[in-house]
């Protein structure tokens, strides 16, 4: 048993110290100073689509550090898990959140899925692109397919070497700046819904694609995207035709693990403690109020559990154990803890909690207020907490799955 990863640098070996120093110097040299500045000031949501973040990510990519552990032939740096942690920690320490699929330094959802399910030819084509920083947006959700994703209706019809795609996706975040769309489509409408789905990679420059903005309550933009007779070559299909569902289930569990690892909640708890110590209410330090103390201690405990849950996944992956349901536990914990931090944070701030970022007199730069809105999405985005709980119970303790009603697919 050991829990050394938690304090940055405290337990480094000589070799690790040297590597960490190298990483720090490299970041100092390659980071645009405006990036850390804005990261500090913008609070939530992290503007992961921002050009500065993207530019920094591409520099990391050129160094092979987006996917440090991947072999060099796929564009990685062939480093060890320890070294990946160090790079990861040092980037996180600058308060930078990279775009979705970059954020866990393993190529997000597409990278590991391709590693696992693509043909060698496809790996050679796509993995170096990911390592070089190509951006993917996930094309899963549709107006009538959210939590029940297998109900998706976007249609792909075979035509020679291509599929012809028609239909609509929504909540494809970052699709306006992405290069590729990681797309689930229905290739066979005449079989039970889970068995007629295929996974494709669409080039977003293809003709027939229209993107429209959707505005969310956190101020973050997302998009709906329409496919009108868009042609995608069949060689862009990952896995067998009609065999996309099984692959997607794997990919979803990877996404869950990465969704769970946002540093937002622990940072806000730290900010709240600092705020309470510096603020006087009714002539007394806010931190002397027993209810405030209890609340902050409670939040501290729960963000520490979150930290442990996330590290457990890393440990399991690194030790070759199957993290199975633990990603779902992390995801739930991240969602519920973030919402709790946001809500109790608002309670501690009192009247001032309602002030938005940029307002006169706003505490903690409005990050708590913004977080209060932003965290709403976390308990259903990327899979609802309810689904996650059933995943945990059925996998971890072998509870029987809920019987499904078999319904014909709508044509």
């Amino acid at each position, binding site marked *: 048993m050991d829990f050394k990863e938690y304090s940055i640098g405290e337990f480094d070996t000589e070799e690790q110290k040297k590597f960490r120093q190298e990483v720090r110097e490299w970041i100092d040299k390659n980071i645009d100073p405006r990036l850390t500045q804005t990261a500090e000031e913008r609070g939530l949501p992290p503007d992961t689509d921002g050009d500065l973040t993207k530019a920094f990510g591409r520099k990391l990519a050129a160094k092979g550090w987006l996917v440090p552990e991947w072999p060099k032939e796929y564009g990685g740096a062939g480093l060890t898990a320890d070294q990946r942690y160090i790079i990861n920690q040092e980037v996180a320490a600058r308060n930078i959140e990279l775009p979705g699929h970059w954020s866990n330094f393993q190529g997000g959802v597409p990278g590991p899925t391709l590693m696992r399910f693509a043909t060698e030819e496809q790996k050679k084509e796509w993995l170096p692109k990911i390592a070089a920083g190509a951006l993917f947006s996930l094309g899963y959700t549709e107006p009538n397919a959210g939590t029940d994703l297998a109900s998706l209706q976007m249609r792909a019809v075979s035509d020679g070497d291509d599929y012809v795609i028609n239909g609509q996706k929504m909540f494809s975040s970052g699709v306006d700046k992405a290069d590729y769309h990681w797309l689930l489509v229905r290739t066979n409408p005449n079989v039970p819904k889970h068995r007629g789905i295929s996974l494709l990679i669409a080039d977003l420059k293809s003709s027939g694609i229209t993107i429209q903005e959707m505005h969310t309550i956190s101020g973050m933009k997302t998009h709906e995207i329409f496919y009108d007779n868009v042609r995608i070559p069949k060689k862009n299909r990952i896995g067998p035709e009609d065999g996309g569902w099984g692959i997607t289930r794997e990919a979803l569990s990877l996404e869950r693990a990465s969704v769970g690892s946002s540093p937002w909640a622990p940072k806000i708890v730290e900010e709240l403690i600092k705020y309470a110590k510096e603020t006087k209410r009714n002539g007394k330090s806010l931190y002397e109020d027993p209810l405030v103390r209890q609340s902050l201690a409670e939040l501290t405990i729960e963000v520490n*559990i979150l930290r442990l849950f996330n590290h457990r996944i890393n440990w399991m992956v690194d030790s070759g154990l199957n993290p199975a349901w633990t990603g779902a536990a992390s995801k739930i914990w991240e969602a519920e803890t973030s919402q709790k931090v946001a809500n109790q944070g608002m309670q501690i701030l009192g009247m001032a909690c309602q002030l938005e970022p940029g307002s006169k007199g706003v505490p903690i730069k409005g990050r708590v207020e913004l977080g209060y809105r932003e965290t709403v999405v976390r308990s259903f985005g990327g899979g609802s907490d309810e689904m996650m*709980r059933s995943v945990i119970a059925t996998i971890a303790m072998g509870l029987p799955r*809920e019987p499904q009603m078999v319904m014909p697919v709508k044509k």
Partner: protein
Amino acid sequence: MNFDFNDEQKMFKQGARDFFEKECPKSLVRQMAADEKGNPPELWKKMAQLGWLGLVFPERYGGSGGNMIDLVALEEEMGRACLPGTFFSTVLLGGLFILNSGSEEQKKDLLTKVAKGEIILTLALTELSGSYAAGAVETTAVSNKDEYIINGTKLYVPDAHIADYIICIARTKKENNPEDGITAFLVDRKSAGISCTLLKTIAGDKLCEVVFNNVKVARKNIIGKLDQAWSALEQTLQQATIARCAESVGGAQKVLEMAADHTKQRIVFDRPLGSFPVIQHYIANMIMDIDGSRFLTYEAAWRLSEKMPCAKEIAMAKAWTSEAYRRVTANGHEIYGGIGFTVESDIHLYFRRAKAWEVTLGDGNVQREVLAKELGK
């Protein structure tokens, strides 16, 4: 980074599980809850032979030289088994306090006897308020030649009615800082002036009221330094707290397994209870409660065994684990329904312990206040 026990510890833990399954059936647990002494002598002897009573004592005091993580492994299995008896009072409170602050002679003598299972010890700290804070110690010990004379009432003292020695925590000087002026005395339980009343408790734990009425103790029976017992006491409480957390994790894990089995077997509305999402969600909540408890406890134990600062981690572990254990057992009752409400069911054995252990060694509110103080530094 490693979230698990090493291979040797895993084997040790499995061995302990097998042992308790055989030697500590729930019939014995029930019998001991009703029994006035509450300490099964055969089981105690066997645990001594296995070296478990001296698990964390150095070999020169008859122990096995294990560390906190070994202790956590054993405690999880004790919690799983609802082990009755005096491990908490004798080893965790009495034994560790002597190890932390006793003289070489006291350690050699008393710890060796503890490890062999020859004596029962306990620690008399809490009083009427039930608080573990230094300020709550009102029992006094006044110097009189080569002796001290102790007066006061100790409450919730585990196993005092069958202990050979009671380590009595008494105030020897009134200082501004309540942590100063506290001294520990090794008192023979049969000394004149001690009266002991067994209390009736929710989990059948043997807690006593111990009244000290002009009890005379020789000066040489002071453990540690005069007026300065508090830091060793704090250290002991920290160790005992981690052990109790581990015991709770073990108990909660067993409740989860029992409840999950029940959901697979129980048929309602023509399908297994566990196929209903509402039940699956209870189970998922139990798993997350237990895992949070487990890793907070492991991390605290690891930090303690590495001699790193761990006051925050221990407070977090106790605050969370003791409340989580109670929630898990309450979920277990809800899943079991009516049959779990009968005394023949095992689930209530855990439900009772969870509440008793929640309030022992500082409940959630107390521990969160400890944490808030640390965070305020």
